[in-house]
């Protein structure tokens, strides 16, 4: 990967989010958390890529994953194991949960989804809301959109946002109440990480532009089903309520990826 690779723009953006958020809002909750996720993500990437594939992979992806996990994982007070195990599982998923040589889950999406589903007594997601400050969020959205455009994934981000808004209106028509309550989630920081770093991950999205747009539309649809489950208190979906977009992507993303790879395999001579 060259330094001009758009991935480094993502690296820049998530570093910006980290530095700005920590300087203004202490979003990390302790540097030991960041050291743990970065150390284990990068270490695992180096070791597994060398041992399984014979060459050391570029660590930019592990760096992004490490920061995402440090920002998104919010466990019970003063426990570090979710950061350590989450980091190992995130990177490990790239080498274990593969199909035709490609990993199926966005690494941080996989780890967060697993932690909130399997360890809900210990882990929640992003309790810090970065002050609910409009200015900070506008800055990150502006940078994020610019980077997404440069990285040629803007269509993914915008498709998701459009679908979210449309489906928020639909949800509001179904459940009633204030429309702003349904629109509100996407103005928050969890969605910034989601729309700029997860759904746009080029390694875990399908091959065609139209396909990518279709996949995120389905993600938004599944998210809506989870949200309606929350509104109507569907007990089966309760583990999914706290982080609907993350879990929707964890469900839809690998299926789409698998289907895409399967179709490519059948087309190949």
């Amino acid at each position, binding site marked *: 990967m060259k330094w001009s690779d758009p991935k480094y723009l993502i690296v820049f953006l998530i570093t910006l989010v980290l530095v700005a958020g920590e300087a203004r*809002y*202490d979003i990390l909750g302790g540097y030991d958390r960041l050291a743990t996720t970065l150390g284990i993500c990068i270490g695992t990437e180096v070791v*597994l890529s*060398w*041992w*399984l594939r*014979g*060459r*050391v992979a570029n660590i930019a992806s592990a760096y992004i994953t490490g920061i995402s996990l440090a920002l998104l994982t*919010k*466990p*019970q*007070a*003063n426990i570090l*194991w979710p950061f350590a*195990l*989450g980091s190992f*599982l995130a990177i*490990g*998923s790239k*080498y*274990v949960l593969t199909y035709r040589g490609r990993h199926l889950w966005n690494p941080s999406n996989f780890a967060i989804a*697993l*932690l*909130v589903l*399997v*360890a*809900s*007594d*210990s*882990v*929640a997601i*992003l*309790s*810090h*809301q*970065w*002050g*609910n*400050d*409009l200015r900070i*969020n506008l800055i990150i959205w502006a940078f994020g959109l610019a980077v997404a455009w440069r990285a040629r994934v803007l269509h993914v981000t915008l498709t998701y946002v459009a679908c979210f808004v449309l489906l928020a209106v639909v949800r509001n028509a179904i459940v009633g*109440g*204030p429309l*702003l*309550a*349904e629109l*509100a*989630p996407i*103005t*928050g*920081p969890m*969605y910034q990480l989601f729309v700029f770093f997860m759904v746009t991950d080029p390694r875990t999205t399908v091959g065609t532009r139209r396909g990518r747009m279709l996949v995120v539309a389905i993600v938004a649809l599944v998210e809506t089903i989870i949200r309606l489950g*929350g*509104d109507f*208190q569907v007990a089966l979906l*309760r*583990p999914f*309520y*706290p982080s609907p977009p993350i879990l929707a992507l964890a469900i839809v993303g690998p299926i789409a990826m698998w289907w895409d790879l399967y179709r490519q395999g059948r087309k190949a001579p």
Partner: protein
Amino acid sequence: MSLSRGGPFGSFESLESWGEKLTLLRCIGYSLPVFTASWRRVIVTAAFLAAVVAVAVLNRRAPASLTGARETIRLTEVAHQSGIDFVHQPATLDPKLAHITPHVAALGACVSVSDVNNDNWPDLYFTSSRFGAANALYLNQRDGTFRDVAAEAGVAALNLPGEGVSMGAVWGDYDNDGFEDLFVYKWGYPQLLHNLGNGRFADVTAQSGLRRWMNSNGAVWFDFDRDGLLDLYITGYFRSDIDFWHLRTTRIMQESWEFASNGGKNLLFKNLGNGRFADVTDSMGVGSTRWTLAAAAADFNDDGWPDLYLANDYGPEELFLNREGKRFELARAGLEDDSKSGMAVALGDVYNRGRHDVFVTNISERGFLFQGNNLRINFLKELGRFNEIATGAVADAGWAWGAQFGDLNNDGWLDLVVVNGFISADSGRDYWYAMSKVAGAQGRIFEDAKNWPAIGTASLSGYERSRVLLNRGREGLGGGFVDVAEEAGVTDRLDGRGVALADLFNVGTLDVVIANEKGKALLYRNGAHPGHWVEFKLIGTRSNRSAIGAEVTVAFGGIPQRQVVDGGVGFCSQNDRRLHFGLGDERPGRVTIRWPSGTAQVLEGLAPDRLYEITEPRK
């Protein structure tokens, strides 16, 4: 083969990437034990699966789920048998808030302890919050029962349209006449009720200068300038321009869940000594608008002046250090960046170091939010800060409200009682998901109450069990505390708000009184324990007569334990101002009293298992 000698790759140090270096190592035979590609994959897959299992196992061992390894506390709920049948009534609000009234109006159940009639038996005052609902003053009948005398005393009918509703109360002898007076903070006009000493109280709010509309959920008496007169710090929660029964706007909520500063302004009133109080908030620099829910006063930095510690909802805690009664300074003490939802401030010398450590309650809810309570160990003298050490059962007590430290088993270590639960309604419906929609959003959205989803009949962290955390001293994990509530007999799942501790029956053990929102008050009577104890009732002379702010350090078994007479502590509550020290197998050693006036007094050779009434030396 020397790595630096080079070869077809050049020298090892000259290689730029780790990939090239590793390739070189493999070429020259430096390699891990040889596994085939398939075996490597199997090993990695096994490690991956082991990590998944580890997540599940570690989650099951979440420290909060641990219960006591050895139980030494025995509490029995006796409120009804004791004649206490008080049930808190919640406030009704403007219809514009109807969709979230259960959420907004989920406050106001308070309990405060005082010996109202100077008979050396602690009495109890409970507040209610609905117009027309009566507050209750339970006089201790000295036979294990209580009798409500609020109506005849003139402290019952305080919840009136146009005047507001009660949110809590604190006792203090503001005029040093020997009788404890009552200050009731409200959503509305607060009230100062002067104890006439004949079983009746007179409302002196207007002439005192305290009649100012506030939406307050806390207050503390303390003598910040050490002039021998109790001053009053009143916390503001909602803004003071809000009349909850005649709303002009629905833009009344917090602007941020983490760093909100659009709450009501806290006010400091200096006691002028003539029955009047003067607002000195701005000149003293303590007018925080951070949605303060609780405050506690004590000398945290050992400079002889009482400081103020605030638990703020939607913001970081604040410590205002008292600069010799002339002004307060907001301290950087490791608090400023740790934003949570502070509900209560409890003070205790957790490890018997002769310091005031701080416990602040917060919110934890499975899957949604782990803010965790804070147990802050006081290292102000050494490090200029507190160290937060809460883990396990100390950190996670659900949606925690009131809390108090007290040695419940007389073993010489301060235990911790935490009451919790926000809204217990329809257990099949949960408001957490709906609230989470706006919780992560921009402040402008949820600052307006009309944008909140309707709560309907849903619960919100309801039906939580109270915690009784046994302090095992310096041994063990989790800050040395273990949850023994169920073994101790504390099994209620009401929505606790205020909790207070007092030796209600003068037997040398601390009982637990809980005020529950929309629920009945509970009295947990403490059983007998083998440990020794000693209690002190302090009477100020040069200091305020209530001795609020007096600090007592009892040495026993070679270790000191320090306590302070509080003028309000926890959340909307106040403990008995008699101080109780458990001693374990020890006898009391050197006892040091530092009176608010600055007078130091030393007592030695005291016998255990007695209550001592100590009057401040005149000189």
